[in-house]
């Protein structure tokens, strides 16, 4: 009896305390959602505005109506761009460059990462650090000397490199290979040594260890690196702007900016449509492979 009367106040007090704590939590949660919504509006506003504008006619854009609302939605901008030879050329160039660069990147960085993470050779540790440092060198530092170098190649060897879309196949790997090699070294180094020792015991050679053991085991890292290489190649703006000029050699970002924004009259409906379609491939990849995308994003700084 006494025991019961002693415990009831204690339990009720504890219950009240828990109740107030959960009320605090509820409020914290509510505020979190409020602020997250505000931030989401800020972060998503430009792409949404792109979509809104892309659905408008030129007449509606230049009319002084609410810019955030579409009165007469139309797909004419989309049909016009998707039947425009020039825009399709840009898209094709971008796709071609990105796919080939991803292939080159993987062919260079996977064997290199394997060699650097498993098979020591003279200077391999220095090289691994060097790869990382190369990743830190921005393209804005290199485009001028590279431009002059390629001009000299043309002068002395007669190979025209500037103003050809495939010059980008030489340039983009300098951006993608160091990072991909670096994160693949991280992924390969995390594979237990027993695995390749077992494969060696079974008589596998290095090529077999790489293709039968390392690549399958490090597949998530490989996908992250591929996504990174693709998005970097797709988004690169400085190199194509400096190295290509003719309309049939341009890739998407530069193509939209130099051809659609020509003159004083900007056709904003088409520019926004072009930009939205140009942003679509990375967005689609991101939507389907978000976890790999984020793994690649955080790997650069958290691995190593």
């Amino acid at each position, binding site marked *: 009896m006494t025991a019961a009367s002693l415990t009831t106040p204690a339990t009720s007090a504890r219950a009240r305390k828990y109740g107030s704590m959960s009320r605090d939590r509820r409020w914290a949660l509510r505020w979190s959602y409020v602020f997250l919504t505000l931030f989401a509006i800020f972060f998503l506003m*430009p792409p949404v505005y792109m979509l809104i504008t892309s659905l408008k006619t030129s007449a509606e854009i230049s009319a002084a109506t609410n810019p955030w609302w579409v009165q007469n939605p139309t797909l004419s901008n989309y049909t016009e761009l998707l039947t425009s030879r020039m825009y399709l050329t840009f898209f094709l160039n971008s796709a071609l460059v990105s796919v080939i660069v991803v292939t080159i990147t993987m062919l260079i960085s996977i064997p290199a990462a394997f060699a650097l993470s498993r098979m020591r050779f003279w200077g391999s540790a220095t090289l691994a650090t060097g790869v990382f440092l190369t990743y830190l060198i921005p393209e804005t530092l290199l485009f001028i000397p590279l431009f*002059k170098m390629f001009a000299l190649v043309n002068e002395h060897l007669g190979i025209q490199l500037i103003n050809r879309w495939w010059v980008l196949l030489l340039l983009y790997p300098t951006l993608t290979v160091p990072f991909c090699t670096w994160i693949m070294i991280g992924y390969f180094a995390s594979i237990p040594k027993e695995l390749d020792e077992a494969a060696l015991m079974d008589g596998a050679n290095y090529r077999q260890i790489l293709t039968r053991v390392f690549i399958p085991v490090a597949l998530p890292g490989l996908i992250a690196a591929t996504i990174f290489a693709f998005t970097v190649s797709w988004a690169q703006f400085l190199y194509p702007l*400096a190295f290509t000029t003719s309309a049939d050699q341009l890739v998407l970002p530069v193509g939209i900016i130099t051809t659609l924004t020509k003159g004083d009259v900007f056709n904003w409906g088409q520019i926004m449509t072009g930009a939205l379609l140009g942003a679509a491939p990375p967005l689609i990849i991101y939507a389907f492979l978000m976890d790999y995308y984020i793994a690649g994003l955080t790997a650069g700084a958290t691995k190593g």
Partner: protein
Amino acid sequence: MVDAALQAPSAAVARRRGGFRRFMQRRSTIAFLMALPLILLIALLVIYPAFYSLHLATLNKSMERFVGLGNFAFLFKRETFWMVVQQSCIFAITAVIFKALIGFIVAHFVHNIPSKGQRKWRGMLLVPWVIPPAMSCLAWLWLFDPSYSAFNWLLALVGVDPVSWTGEPNWARASVILVNVWIGAPFFMIMYLAALKSVPEQLYEAAAIDGANWWQRMWYVTLPMMRNIMAITALFSLIVTFANFDIVRILTAGGPIDRTHVFATWAFWVGIQGNDIPLGASVSLFMVPILTVAAVFILRDINRRAGEMS
């Protein structure tokens, strides 16, 4: 006798070929050959041009005469150059601070909500980072349009005069920073979220038992645990922001009257469009000191962590 004399060289050849094959089969040789394409790529297209730009910077405009430090002396005398230095520093530092702050705050809010909803929010908030910067800058350019700005339309609703987003120097500088923050903050958010998730829950429980309040938990548990990732993310971002090209180029092209130029855009303007490659190379070389400082700190951190792991 004749036979032996005939056989001797072929045996030597065989031995040499065997030696070569053995050399080829040696582990370190295979490893070197596997890394060779990477070495060639870095040597020819990164290291060589980096040093070549040092050489270019010492030539005159037509690249026929050696002028020593003449290009740098010329730059130091130009007012535009000092303006670009100042603008680059303001641009990079302000943008990184705001990106870090917003990233930190948003990461905490995402961390606060139940984990099954986190994926959705994280997915939405990372969108600015995924869109190619050239494309999203076009959207911002349109949002900042002098006559049809959608922001000014909203401001007009609350009775504020239209703002000249890219026309007036200080507003243009602020706009360029705003766009950079918009693009870069999600990256900080993702990194900080990863860092927050790596803090063991027991530490918070221990702190709660010791009666720590929210600020104390933040100051003594969260921040020390996140310090490493925060520092390295900020340094990475400092490098990328300092060398940024796309945003300024598309939004203002350096204008109004060079008031928003940063090193990269000015180097492009002088070197490629102005056809003065040596001067452009000299301008871009001014990015090297700050990049080196950031790189040294990042490398130190990475080496330290590598040491801790082994």
